[in-house]
């Protein structure tokens, strides 16, 4: 478990001071895929760098399983960094070394024997799906493949936590999806807690279970992804969930009840699902707003449905939609 307690970070530069983070408190539980999302300059990278003490917080603490990382010596920190590894937007592979040697690198740092390191690296190449790239150099690989090698390298020391700073921001949507699938798989199979820094809502939608929205160095909102998406409270969250401000223009008939349907990897497309509901349940739902997209055979995004007033109909609709799986349905009250 990682607890960030009242963390602040102020940079002193020639041009004055920059308060990059202000009084951040967050808890990441073991096994979470925790998203930290915010616009550029919100302080995301600074926050993630404070988690492994690449950046020393000005105030506050980072506790890992109860241990205060700020109180550790440089040497002790180096040990902790084998448990909390990191992948980056630019992959940051050693360009003069083969993929195999890149993956061996953290093991080499830790003093693991060559043969043993190599064996582990080969296993990791298998896990990330590039068993035939051991002797290739990073420059010979695509961006997605390079990130897979970086992931393998980050897993070499069998970390408890993997920090991803904009790890998919340099990749195209398809590759992004593949990498996110890999991360999800790693989270499930190896039980590694993952913290994902991103400016892309779709990334959080796709794999995170919890999310913190960072805005101007403060946490604007924090919670279950589905809850935050279903009913964003803060302005920053609303801006991210409704980038075009659609929520304001949603027409609601008098008396109409509104459901927000969040698709979090559902196996059914949005509009056909509503049509199917009309056929199966004889409920005529009005699609007020929809922003969904398909990645592979799964759907992500959300939708606002207008429903007739009767409680019974609403209940049936909620039940019907929820049964699809990976769909979260909540009633929206008091807006518009």
């Amino acid at each position: 478990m990682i607890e960030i307690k009242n963390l602040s970070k102020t940079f002193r530069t020639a041009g004055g001071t920059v308060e990059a983070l202000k009084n951040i408190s967050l808890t990441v539980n073991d096994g979470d895929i925790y998203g930290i999302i915010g616009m550029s300059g919100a302080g995301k990278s600074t926050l993630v760098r404070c988690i492994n003490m690449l950046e020393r917080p000005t105030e506050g603490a980072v506790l890992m399983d109860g241990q205060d990382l700020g109180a550790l010596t440089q040497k002790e920190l180096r040990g902790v960094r084998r448990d909390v590894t990191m992948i980056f937007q630019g992959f940051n592979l050693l360009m003069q070394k083969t993929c195999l040697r890149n993956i061996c690198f953290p093991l080499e740092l830790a003093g693991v024997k060559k043969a043993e390191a190599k064996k582990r690296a080969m296993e990791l190449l298998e896990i990330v799906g590039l068993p035939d790239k051991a002797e290739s150099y990073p420059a010979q690989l695509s961006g997605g493949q390079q990130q897979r090698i970086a992931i393998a390298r980050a897993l070499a020391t069998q970390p408890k936590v993997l920090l991803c700073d904009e790890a998919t921001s340099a990749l195209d949507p398809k590759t992004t999806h593949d990498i996110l699938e890999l991360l999800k798989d790693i989270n499930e199979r190896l039980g590694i807690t993952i913290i994902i820094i991103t400016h892309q809502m779709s990334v959080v939608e796709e794999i995170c279970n919890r999310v913190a929205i960072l805005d101007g160095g403060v946490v604007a909102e924090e919670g279950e992804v589905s809850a935050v998406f279903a009913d964003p409270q803060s302005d920053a969250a609303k801006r991210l969930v409704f980038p075009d401000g659609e929520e304001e223009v949603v027409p609601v008939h008098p008396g109409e009840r509104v459901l927000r349907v969040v698709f979090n990897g559902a196996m059914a497309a949005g509009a056909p699902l509503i049509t199917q509901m009309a056929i199966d349940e004889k409920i005529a739902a009005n699609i007020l707003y929809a922003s969904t997209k398909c990645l592979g055979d799964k759907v992500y995004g959300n939708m606002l449905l207008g429903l007739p007033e009767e409680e019974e109909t609403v209940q049936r609709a909620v039940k019907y939609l929820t049964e699809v799986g990976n769909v979260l349905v909540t009633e929206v009250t008091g807006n518009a």
Partner: protein
Amino acid sequence: MLDKMFTSEAISEALLILKEEMPFALWETTYVTVLATAFAIILGLPLGILLVAGEKDGVLPLPKGVMHVLNVVINLLRSIPFLILMILVFPLTRLIVGTSVGTTASIVPLVIAAFPFVARLVESSLRELNPNIIEMAQSMGASPMQIIVKVMLPESIPSLISNFTIAITTILGYTAMSGIIGGGGLGKIAINYGYYRYKYLVMLIAVIILIILVQLFQSIGTKLAVKLDRRVKH
């Protein structure tokens, strides 16, 4: 001068001199150049590393004063003309080699002149490195020493080789000047025959051989740098 240069008499005389003295001179020049470069790298490489690693936000920050002294000394040594430096270091040369004249003795001023230059070249090579790579190594728990040895140097190899090539060709040029303090080699032949005895053809040939040597070192260095660079898809 030109008309006297290519008379058959001059040519046969030059060929004789070349046949008798050139192989040894070539050997001397190569030996002095390679040794001086090697020592200059032995001294300059760690200094160059310190110049980068020792900075305020380098991997091994050193006290400001230390960095300042280092920079001043390097700049100072680099600003002394080689001809004067050769004379200035006589006492040091005598201390190390036992004499201040001769081929081996000429290595000392060459090294003194070249190592600050090499330090700057190493510095510029290391600065080319993507700082994110260093951050990556830190995030994986690398110690400052490990970052220098396992990341900064290996990742800079192609650039270092290119810069060491510049160093060796520059030093080769300087060896010619050491003929003045009795250092042997192509420079001595050029000066002795060309300047003191007006045998310009010998001088011309010595210079041409020097040029060929520079070209040779340069093309070997460039080829090696490209060959070893894994960023290029071979």
